């Protein structure tokens, strides 16, 4: 939200050994509604929903990138580039990310469990 004519933008990049782990940046909010027609209201709601889903996408991709800093994951999740630009794509990307996170978690749990089983025997 920008107030009193001032606008704040920010960016942040996390690196380990010079290699990018994750990057985040300011995303422009839809701003206040400026008309009273129904079409305007609908457009505003769509814009707001798009903003929310894109923020959710960036939250999940950053969490994923931070959770697996040394894993070879798609570069776009680390950089935030080529992010979805409409609601449908954002939802699809969120679903993919959540699924990918579960699969990654499972594939990293199994070897540990095997090691534990072996060590017991």
């Amino acid at each position, binding site marked *: 939200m920008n107030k009193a004519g001032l606008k704040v933008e920010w960016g*942040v990049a996390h690196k380990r050994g010079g290699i990018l782990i994750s990057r985040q940046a300011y995303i422009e909010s839809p701003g206040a509604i400026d008309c009273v027609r129904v079409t305007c209201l609908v457009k505003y709601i769509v814009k707001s929903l798009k903003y929310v889903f894109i923020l959710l996408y960036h939250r999940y991709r950053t969490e994923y990138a931070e959770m697996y800093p040394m894993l070879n994951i798609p570069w776009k999740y680390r950089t935030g580039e080529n992010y979805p630009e409409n609601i449908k794509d954002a939802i699809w990307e969120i679903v993919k990310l959540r699924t990918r996170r579960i699969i990654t978690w499972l594939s990293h749990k199994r070897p540990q469990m095997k090691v534990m089983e072996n060590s017991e025997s």
Partner: protein
Amino acid sequence: MAQSQTTTNEGYGELGKLVAGEAASKVTSVVCYEDACAAASEASTYASPAATKITDSGLSIADADTVVSAQTTVAADTVQLDHQFTASGTKTVTGFGVCNDENDVLYAECCFNAGIAMESSDTLDVQMKIQFKAD
């Protein structure tokens, strides 16, 4: 946790004093936040920011590497601060704020979309732009 960013009321006051030539100081330093950073707020102050200021691990308040004017819409309408932190311990950074030279006024702050899990020797490049001529 969702991204939020804002300038602060005490920052407006400091800016007013600077323009009037009264005792005040420019944007100089930057500090990282930890713990829940739910929403940056205009009511935030240096003493009471949106989240807990980090005071150790190389992520505490420091003079920024560079603070310069830049162009966003018209020439020199933006203050741009850049800094690189190098962590000396394990911390989860959830946002950051920019402060004046005396480290007693918070000009602006932001909260991230997701926390950043820093480990020793990790670097965190932060950048903040405050544009005076917002469209």
